């Protein structure tokens, strides 16, 4: 005997929809796994986050990240007690690098968010409204872009008081035009699509069309751009710290460690080598992730 099958409820339908979407995610996951470089990038970043989170546990001498000094043990080469050696104030370099990941993540995140917050709305408005407003906004962006970002960030950071916060602001100021450009280009093509006219046809206001109808369609391109720039942001921040307008002692910032360690080369090789390797691996990780995301989210760019 067969019981009458109950009519599918919206919940059943929802499950069907979710299953279909899950299938989509599975394809994306497969594409992601098919690219070993992307996987490496993600692994590096996950590792970075884990290290940052577990810093107090991982660091052999947590107090060395701060102002403590052990002048008796200064500039010791790598040993069992200090795996990566000690610096000019006798602090354990491994501990400082481990604590430095927190700073690095913070820099990458803050700079990216800040330049997104400035750049994306400007690009979206310029692209959607066009005309004189577009002209004005984009020429402003050109002015910022006409100076190499590192130099501009250096100038802004030097003009403000040297500190890691000001360095982050300076880098964001130098970088928002890149987001504006990318977003503007995308908006220019999206605003001609029928769904924009359809939205106007049913009475949706302009502001809502820009920010809730068009911008979500730019999401993948923004995500790719942002993930590529996290690495750049970290590198630039390290550079600013290196020349002295970024992080100030005693912060365990990698660029700053390089800067101080430079004075002790070539004998004290471990002082600069290990922070350098940390910067290298981190930036590489973010760049690999960015490239991978671009391949996954924007198939047109793939060769």
């Amino acid at each position, binding site marked *: 005997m067969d019981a009458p099958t109950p009519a599918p409820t*919206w919940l059943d*339908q929802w499950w069907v929809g979710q299953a279909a979407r899950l299938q989509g995610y599975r394809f994306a996951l497969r594409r992601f796994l098919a690219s070993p470089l992307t996987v490496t990038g993600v692994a590096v970043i996950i590792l970075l986050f884990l290290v940052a989170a577990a810093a107090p546990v991982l660091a052999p001498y947590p107090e060395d990240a701060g102002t403590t000094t052990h002048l008796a043990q200064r500039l010791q080469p790598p040993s069992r007690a200090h795996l990566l050696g000690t610096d000019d104030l006798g602090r354990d370099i491994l501990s400082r690098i481990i604590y430095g990941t927190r700073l690095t993540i913070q820099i990458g995140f803050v700079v990216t968010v800040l330049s997104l917050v400035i750049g994306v709305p400007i690009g979206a408005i310029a692209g959607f409204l066009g005309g004189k407003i577009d002209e004005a906004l984009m020429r402003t962006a050109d002015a910022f872009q006409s100076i190499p970002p590192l130099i501009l960030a250096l100038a802004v950071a030097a003009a403000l008081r040297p500190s890691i916060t000001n360095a982050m602001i300076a880098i964001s100021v130098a970088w928002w035009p890149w987001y504006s450009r990318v977003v503007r280009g995308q908006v220019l093509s999206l605003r001609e699509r029928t769904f924009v006219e359809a939205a106007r046809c049913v*009475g949706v*206001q302009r502001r809502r069309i820009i920010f809730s109808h068009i911008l979500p369609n730019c999401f993948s391109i923004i995500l790719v751009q942002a993930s590529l720039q996290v690495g750049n942001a970290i590198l630039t921040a390290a550079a600013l710290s290196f020349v002295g307008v970024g992080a100030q002692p005693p912060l365990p910032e990698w660029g700053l460690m390089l800067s101080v360690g430079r004075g002790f080369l070539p004998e004290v090789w471990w002082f600069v080598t290990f922070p350098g390797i940390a910067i290298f691996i981190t930036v590489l990780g973010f760049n690999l992730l960015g490239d991978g995301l671009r391949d996954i989210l924007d198939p047109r760019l793939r060769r």
Partner: protein
Amino acid sequence: MNGPMPPLLEVQALRTRFETYAGTVDALDGVSFSLKRGEILGLVGETGCGKSVTALSLMRLVPDPPGRIVGGRVLFKGQDLLALPERAMGHIRGREMAMVYQEPMTALNPVFTVGDLLSEVIIHHRGIRKAEARGEAAEALRLVGMPDPVGTLLRYPHELSGGMCQRAVLALALVCRPDLLIADEPTTALDVTIQAQILRLIRDLRTRLGLGVLLITHDLGVVAQLCDRVAVMYAGTIVEYGAVREIFHHPQHPYTQGLLEALPRIQETASRLQAIEGTVPNLFAPPPGCRFHPRCRHAREICRIERPKVITTAPEHDVACVLYE
């Protein structure tokens, strides 16, 4: 009822101009017609004759620049839409008049579910809560005969077929129960069976909701099947206008006659189809006088000089041609 009902929509001598680098184009050069509640008016003509510009002008959505409405009146329920401030127009679009597009797939924003799209319109126009809007949205989908309306709310446009997309677009247009629906070639992107379904649906909705429908098409078959009245457009002007039966049986304008002769007929043995000589005029430099005269078999001297007046030759039959003066 006291007195005759005013028409739902009355367009009087509407003129829309595009100023481009290549020159000025009068895309609409004095277009007039009217539409009653519960009536389907077909607007037919070749590609580029100004059908879609008419639709956009009615909605006041002509891209500006380069386009501008330079003259005429659009009386919608007695008020002139062209004189309204933009804010008031925003309340009319979507709530009192709505539009359906040629390509349903591109008219739905790919990042929203159908339910989100519908709810947005409802919330925008009626200011009700999201949960209630969901119910209304499902109701709108049911109205347009969407299979499984509740489940569809959670679907993204790419998960729908072409026919379902067009139903969703219709639901989006009708969700606030407008009085006027402008359908700009709603079936050209669909295959024939779906076309028939959608057209039947539009006719059905007209009866059930008392909609006035302006149906833009280049398919005379669709007009014959669906419309009550028809306006034949040529190069930005309406050349013949009247009841469908009247115009199909007694076409008077040489252009309309040409169009009807160009239709293949199933009864006739295969012979070469009659085509209208020449091509659509270049609107940067439209021919003087009657815009059709360079292609007209009956062209006379006067056609080159004077714009033909609109003449009523029979009840429900207007034609703009000197032959009937």
